[in-house]
């Protein structure tokens, strides 16, 4: 070693920046069907390699291949396709509504629809998700009324959250959707606590924790892994790696760990990576992890490898930090097109019927939007009352709030 050698800081950089040519050739993508499917009670030590691979079911020709195929019937896949298309149209309408000034803010799911829509079908009534802002598919696939979602986004007088929450920060205990926080990763350890409670009460319900790749750098992600591992909580720990945390590429949060799934290895958790744009693969892995939790075997960490095609939010401009064509170069394709092609391949679907369904879905979403807008939008029509603002801070309103409500004249 040389004495006094000057050190230099390593700051990771993505492969390309705007103006460059997108290149994912360095992202190793195993062939569909090539990753083995272990038993759910496998010793995590025996599947450490799965934290570095990618479980895929749909091949380039739209065939479902390999040991993870077959977790859903064609009818269920049709339903899945519909959910993803609904979410996509919902997104585009709400994005437009934001641009029209009908709400302050929106966050879309473009390219990531398979993750939440397919995962939801591995859950049972009573299970609880602790989501981030990009898992509205859990609600759509769970049958939550779209009008209610729009009322929340518009903060109108029918908003179930009385105008208190930022748009897209839904809450529905009944539909297994924990109230969303704007603070990142806080929900991750709360999910573990919820799952621990279910175990303490010898219940049968499980929890699912959700986080993005960037937020895995937050302390609470690691807190959650410690608690989940220590108490073997019945929870599925999901990491949605969509490559970008606003403008920061995933390499900044990942550091030297290789993959986000590999974070789980140090905690002794079975850690899998799955093609997040493959509805069949997401469902199969979700079902595997949920079964582990349900059978009291313990938690599982799942990394969904996907790509955020749209902007982070309506306040973001991705052209400033990544090549415009990058989403098209993403090697795992579009989840809606891939599932559509699979259904056509197995003879359960056709381009004509797809077009027809697209039109029907658009009509459904437009009708829902009209109904929601009858109640009002952020700046026009019915608004939650000012009196509502003072309610619900505590179960019982304390004297100082009563005084303030009086001062406000409500």
């Amino acid at each position, binding site marked *: 070693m040389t004495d006094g050698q000057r050190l230099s800081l390593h700051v990771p950089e993505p492969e390309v920046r705007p103006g460059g040519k997108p290149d994912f050739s360095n992202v190793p993508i195993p062939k569909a069907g090539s990753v083995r499917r272990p038993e759910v009670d496998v010793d995590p030590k025996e599947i450490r390699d799965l934290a570095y691979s990618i479980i895929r079911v749909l091949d380039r020709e739209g065939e479902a291949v390999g040991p993870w195929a077959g977790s859903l019937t064609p009818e269920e896949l049709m339903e899945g396709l519909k959910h993803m298309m609904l979410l996509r149209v919902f997104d585009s309408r709400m994005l437009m509504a934001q641009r029209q000034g009908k709400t302050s803010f929106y966050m879309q799911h473009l390219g990531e629809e398979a993750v939440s829509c397919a995962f939801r079908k591995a859950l049972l009534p009573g299970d*609880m998700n*602790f989501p981030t802002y990009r898992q509205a598919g859990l609600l759509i696939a769970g049958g939550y009324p779209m009008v209610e979602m729009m009322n929340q986004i518009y903060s109108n007088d029918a908003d*179930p*959250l*009385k105008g*208190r*929450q930022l748009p897209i*920060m839904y*809450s*529905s*205990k009944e539909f297994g959707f*924990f*109230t969303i*926080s704007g*603070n990142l990763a*806080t929900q*991750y*350890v*709360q*999910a*573990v*606590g*919820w*799952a*621990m*409670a*279910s*175990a*303490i*009460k010898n219940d049968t319900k499980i*929890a699912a924790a959700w986080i993005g790749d960037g937020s895995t750098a937050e*302390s*609470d992600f690691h*807190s*959650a892994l*410690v*608690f989940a591992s*220590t108490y073997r909580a019945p929870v599925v720990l999901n990491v949605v790696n969509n490559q970008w945390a606003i403008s920061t590429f995933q390499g900044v949060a990942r550091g030297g760990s290789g993959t986000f799934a590999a974070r789980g290895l140090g905690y002794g958790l079975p850690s899998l990576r799955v093609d997040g744009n493959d509805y069949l693969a997401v469902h199969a892995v979700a079902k595997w992890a949920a079964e582990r939790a349900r059978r009291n075997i313990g938690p599982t960490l799942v990394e969904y490898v996907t790509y955020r095609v749209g902007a982070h939010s309506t306040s973001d401009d991705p052209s400033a930090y990544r090549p415009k064509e990058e989403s098209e170069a993403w090697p795992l394709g579009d989840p809606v097109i891939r599932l559509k092609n699979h259904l056509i391949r197995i003879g359960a679907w056709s381009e004509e019927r797809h077009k027809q369904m697209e039109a029907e879905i658009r009509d459904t979403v437009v009708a829902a939007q009209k109904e929601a807008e009858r109640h009002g939008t952020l700046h026009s029509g019915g608004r939650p009352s000012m009196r509502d603002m003072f309610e*619900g*801070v*505590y*179960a019982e309103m*304390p*004297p*100082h709030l009563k005084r303030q409500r009086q001062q406000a004249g409500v």
Partner: protein
Amino acid sequence: MPRMTMIEAIRSAMDVSMERDDDVVVFGEDVGYFGGVFRGTQGLQQKYGKTRCFDAPINESGIVGAAIGMAAYGLKPCVEIQFADYMYPAYDQLTQEAARLRYRSNGDFTCGITVRMPTGGGIFGGQTHSQSPEALFTHVCGLQVVVPSNPYDAKGLLIASIENPDPVIFLEPKRLYNGPFDGHHDRPVTSWAGHPLGEVPAEHFVVPLGKAVVRRPGSAVTVLAYGTMVHVAEATAEETGIDAEVIDLRTLMPLDLDTIVTSVKKTGRCLVVHEATLTSGFGAELAALVQEHCFYQLEAPVIRVAGWDTPYPHAQEWDYFPGPARVGRALRDLMEA
């Protein structure tokens, strides 16, 4: 009636609550097998099993975050942060999560957690075992903040906190765990055994949150205090001979403004005493409220006596927080004003 120290009363509160309600769970660092570094949870794991009272990893954010999830499920977690000084990693979970679940979900999810933490100085704990962070919580909408000053209140308030459907920050003045404090560090520690408030019912009872109590009636000046400083204020009143009315606030949020206003309107003078640092401390809120509600009855400005605006020192801790000498000087100044 049994006599208890404050730590015994706190333990008894959890015991009674766990016995009555299977949904009450207790966890935190060292609270399971060992029974807590102050022995607040001693015996609970043996009695209720290790799934109702257990050790947590050294991860305060994880402890509070997991408790929030448990409360959202329907349990009533009562967790311990080993020292209030260690709550900062959990501050985000406490203030932006626990405090707001009810509001942000319109009651869809609630958060009936109790977070116990030993607070304050007087045990030579230095800067990281002596802090009084109550003002960091009273400023947060959705939290309730409790500071008992004796074993009877500690038990009754803790049971009320555990049964409360919203998050409660339960600050335990560690200087009072084993005996009351007369403000004189060179005198031997007296025992709760000889103190009337050391008599604590063994069974379930509650001291309601949001109710202050007049500890010492008087007519010349009102002294507002809580926790350890209640004892300093009482001692000061005795030693100076000033006819001070000492009010033990017991709950800082919600605050019993009526008791304060009634007293100050009667006495016309008000002194606020706390051991947290002065600037932007809870005393500022008290002084502002008294001014707003009693201005025309006041015969002198409200005065605050508090910890100095420095980090909590180790060797100088007896010079740091208010003792009878400093409080007495302030009382005399107030009477002459």
